[in-house]
Every structure is written in C-alpha cells, then in structure tokens.
C-alpha cells in the first residue's frame, strides 16, 4: 500500500521502530459528569501489531477510542502516539498524524454516495493523485464498494456499510487504525470477511487497535488483547493466553 509517491506515505513514524510502541496510553481516566467511564487504564500498541480491546456493553471501549481521537476529553492520564502527546492537540491534528477511527455502528453518511463517503475519508488530504490512489486501494480491498460507487451509502447492506466505514477510514492513509465493533449487527459470514480485510490491512503495515464484543473473532486476528471491565483493564496478554484464561472463557466466550 505504501508506494514511492511522495504524498502517499502515511505520516512520519520513523522514530518508532517496528515493535516499539506506536501508541501508549497511561492511567487514562474519563468522566461523564459524575460517572467514571474509564478508571485509569493503561495500554499500548506496538507498531505493526493488531491488538484487541474486548469487553461487554458499557465497559468503556467506545470511550477509549473516542478519547484517542480527541472527541472526548480525558480527566487524567497521557496518550502518546509516535512519541507525541495527543492530549495537547485537536481531533484534526490527530487525524493528520495518521490515526483513523471507524466509529461504532456503521456511522456512514447515508444520503451521500459511496464515492462521496470515501472521498470524505480523505478530507484532510489535498493532493488529488494521493486521493485517487487511495480510492483505488480501497476498491481493491473491497471490490463490492467499487461496484457501488454511485449508490447512496444508506442503500448498502449492513456488511457493505461496515466495509464503507472501514474504506473511508483507510482513505485517510492511517498508520494507526482504530475500529469500534466492526462486527456489530453483521451476519457471521460477512463479519468474517471484514476481519479478513482487517488482517489484510495489518499485513500492509497498518497498526490496528480493534474493539470487539465478538471475542473469539477478535482474538483470532489480534496477536494481543486487553479485557476491559467497567472502566478497568481486567486482563491482558497474548491472544493465546486470553483464549485459555478461565475468566475470559466464562465471561466472553460462553464456554
């Protein structure tokens, strides 16, 4: 996905060597009024990794991702991305630095065409060639979208809408892709396809942090994971460890 085109390379993350943390969250605390949605969580994602953040409804997964892209203000804690503190900059700058969020619940633009939806993903990009090439890459990733460019986003099936949301995020040429429950409300077969696409995105060198309730699916693709329970990290470890953990098995795998 990375080519020699000068404008195509994602933002500079040179100083974070493969395997070193691209994202490091320390003691992150978020409050909604009196409610402590995140009670000081710490997690990190290394460059090139796929990391899963699992947990049931209301655990604080969405809050975590929204805080990372500065849509929610943290009450305390630090967010370091590629060596830079994110709490001091705005959403726009975070995106410009190469972080893309696929929001929860197929948040596409239903009355805009697929093409318009995708082009909006490159809203902060100015270079036409780059945008055209990103569009081409997304069409390769999701051929279904390529066939439906002129169709309104709202007329797509649920799975296709999720592909559109991911495609839109990829139009920003991210270094770090944040996905919020990509399998939510989607037929199992399509969910599997979507996770295949996530695997392909990761294989191309994009670092991925994926939030899921579908623990099995997420841990199949991720190499590591965190379990979030009512605003706290309850477990962390490799996917293998988590899949074998009795607590995880009972609470999240229904075994």
């Amino acid at each position, binding site marked *: 996905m990375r080519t020699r085109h000068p404008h195509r390379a994602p933002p500079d993350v040179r100083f974070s060597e493969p395997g070193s943390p691209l994202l490091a969250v320390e003691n992150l605390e978020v409050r909604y009024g009196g409610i402590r949605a995140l009670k000081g969580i710490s997690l990190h994602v290394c460059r090139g990794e796929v990391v899963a953040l699992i947990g049931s409804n209301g655990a604080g997964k969405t809050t975590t991702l929204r805080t990372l892209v500065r849509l929610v203000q943290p009450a305390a804690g630090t967010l370091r991305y590629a060596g830079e503190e994110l709490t001091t900059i705005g959403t726009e700058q975070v995106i410009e630095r190469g972080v893309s969020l696929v929001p929860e619940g197929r948040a596409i*633009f239903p*009355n805009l065409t697929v093409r318009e939806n995708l082009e909006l993903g490159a*809203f902060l990009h100015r270079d036409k060639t780059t945008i055209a090439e990103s569009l081409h890459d997304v069409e390769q*990733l999701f*051929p279904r979208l390529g066939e439906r460019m002129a*169709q309104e986003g709202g007329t797509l099936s649920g799975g296709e809408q999720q592909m559109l949301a991911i495609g839109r995020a990829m139009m*920003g040429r991210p270094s770090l892709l944040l996905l919020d429950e990509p399998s939510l409300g989607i037929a199992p077969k399509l969910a599997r*396809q979507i996770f295949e696409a996530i695997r*392909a995105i990761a294989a191309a060198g994009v670092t991925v942090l994926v939030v899921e309730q579908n623990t099995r699916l997420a841990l199949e693709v991720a190499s590591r994971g965190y379990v979030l329970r009512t605003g706290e990290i309850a477990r962390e470890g490799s996917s293998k460890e988590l899949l074998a953990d009795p607590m995880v098995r009972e609470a999240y795998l229904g075994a």
Partner: protein
Amino acid sequence: MRRVPAVVLFAIGALTCVGLDLAYDGLVSWDRGSKFWLHILVVCAINVLGATSLNVVNGMAGQFSIGHAGFVGIGAYLGGAIVSNLALALKIPVAALKDNLSLGQSFLLLPVALVVVGLVCAAIGFVVGLPSLRLRGDYLAIVTLGFSEIVRLTVLGISADSATNPLTRAIASLGGSLGYRGPKVGEDYLGVPSVAGPFWTVGIAALAVFLALRLKRSGFGRALRAVREDEIAAAAVGVDPAKYKVTAFVLAAAGAGVAGALLAVQRDGPGIVGPANMKFDKSFEVITMVILGGSGSVSGAAIGAVLYTVIFYASEEALHQLAQAVPAFGSVDAAALRMTLFATALIVVMLVRTQGLFGERELFEKKADDGTPKPPSPSSDDATGTAKEALAS
C-alpha cells in the same frame, strides 16, 4: 467541452439584469397593468434569495432553523433605515423618493446598505448559531424561533414614550407596530425609498444560486452534508462539526439579511417596513419553499421559491376575481386560505414525496444509483479475495 469563463457569464448576467431593469420601467409606463406581474418577478427573486440561504443551514447542514424571518426582519429594518437616511443625506429630493428611484440612483444607495446588512446579519447569525453546538433537532429549532420572536417583540414593545436611552430611542424610531417609515422630516416621514428593481433583486438572487451551487459542490459543502448525516463520523474524518454548523448559520443569516433589505426597498414596494416581516408565518413560508423544492437542493429551493410566490399571487388574484363574480367569496380571508393551501401541499409532499420535488439533487443532475440489485460480479462473493494481493504490493 470548453467551459465558458466565469467573467463572461458574469458580464452576460449583469447585462441581462440591466436589461430586465430597463424593461421593467418601459413595460410599466407602456401598460400599467403589467406592474402586477413584473412586481411578482421582483418578489420571486427576493424569495429565491431567502430560500437558497435557508437551504444552506436547513438543507445542507441539517440544522433545523425556524427563525429565518428574524434575520430577514433585521435586514429589512436595517436596510430600510440605511437607504432612507442615505437618500436624505445625499439630498435626493423627497418628492422623488415617493416614486421609484432610477437604476443610477440605486447605485448610490444600495451597495453600502447591502454590504452593511450582510455583515451585521452574518455576525448575528454567528451568535444564533452558537447554540447549535450544544442543541440539536427540536431544541435548536426552538432557540431559532425564540430569536426571531425576541427581535419582533423588541421592535413592537418599545414605543417613543417608553424610550429613555439612546438604544431604546433608536428602537422606538423603527415605528413599533406602525412600521418603519423612514426618517422624520418636519411633521412627515420620508418613507422607505423604492430602489431595488430587477437589476438588484434578480441579479443578487442569481448570484446567490450560483454561489450556493459552488458551495454545495466544494469540499465545504460536502463537509456540511457530512455533518448533517452523522456528526461523530464527520468528526472522525477531520470535519469539525462546530465550525461548519456555525458557518452555515452565518451564511444563511447574511443571505436572509440581504433578502430582507431588498424586500424593504424593492421597486414599487410599500415604502414601509413592518414587524410582520418577522412573524413565524414568514419563517414557515421559507421552510415551505425549501421543503417543496427538496431540502438540500439549491435549484430545488429556487424553484420552490418561484412556485410558492407565483401560487401565492395567483391565488390572491383568482380569489379577487372570484369575489367580483360571486360576492359571497368577498368574505374569504386570502391569507388564511393560502396558509391552508400550503399546509395541505406540505402534508401531501410529506406523504407522497418526502424528499420534495428534487430531493437533494440539482436540476439536470443525474439521479444517484438507487441500489437495485445488479447481477453480481464474480468478485463480490469474496469481498476480500484480492485484498491481500492488492495490499501486499
């Protein structure tokens, strides 16, 4: 295909408007009966401006404003006051003011007035747009309605007797329920001059439609529509919803203000600016135009405005004719009849064609693919089949 340069288009447009302006005077002096219809042209143009500006905030940005008349009203009073005082300062003879002023004279009075009105209303639009950052839907609508009512009741509520300081005296000079009739000269009011003929009204309306189309097709317009569809998703791609919502209010308010000013000083106008310009009915009228034409569509808003205006006057004229033939119809309240007519039309639109005449499309624009199933292509069964190869390269 070679595109006509904007300058050429602009020049042709300007000349057409000058031609229209001269034709207006010519036709009226030739046949006084034509005045009725020519005047409709002027009102159509002003309504096109009002509707295209409301469409920016309601249609494109999806922030439901029902207080558009507040901005129109401020523009009308401010524009009327600037033009009449300027006319007085420039010593344009009072007798002439009772008639239509010439196109040449209008150039002395209108540019300043329109620019000031546009800027002032833009600033007020900024303030009224701020609540959109915290409120949405019906709550925001109520704030905008509150705004227009505050403006109207302020003008109505302060009379010359109760005015004690410069601010209240200035508001009292707007004439309260009697309306603003220009500055007082001796015992008489000067009246608000009739200066804006087709050159200004049609010209500015055409310019507004042109700019609104450009806006819609620009990255800015796309960002506005994204905010309308989903604020979180918009923010996630780097569109700051706050910035775009407030800017939409600013643009809409400036357009509404200019429409109001033109309304106040239109050719063959009433010579008076009344507080009725700011009533909710007026906001409702503009909303009707936008919804009839198709929320989000610039040409839809413009055509909605023209249709509304023509039906408005035609129904009035028809009722008038009918009343002369059948005296019993003389007691029918034209305004009430019209309200019923348009309310019914809106209900029908909502039931039969929610998206209005055009939906979000523009005139001569191809319809978006409606998503009816197409024969599946070989690749669609395995959506990510080629993904790895594509990405690994």
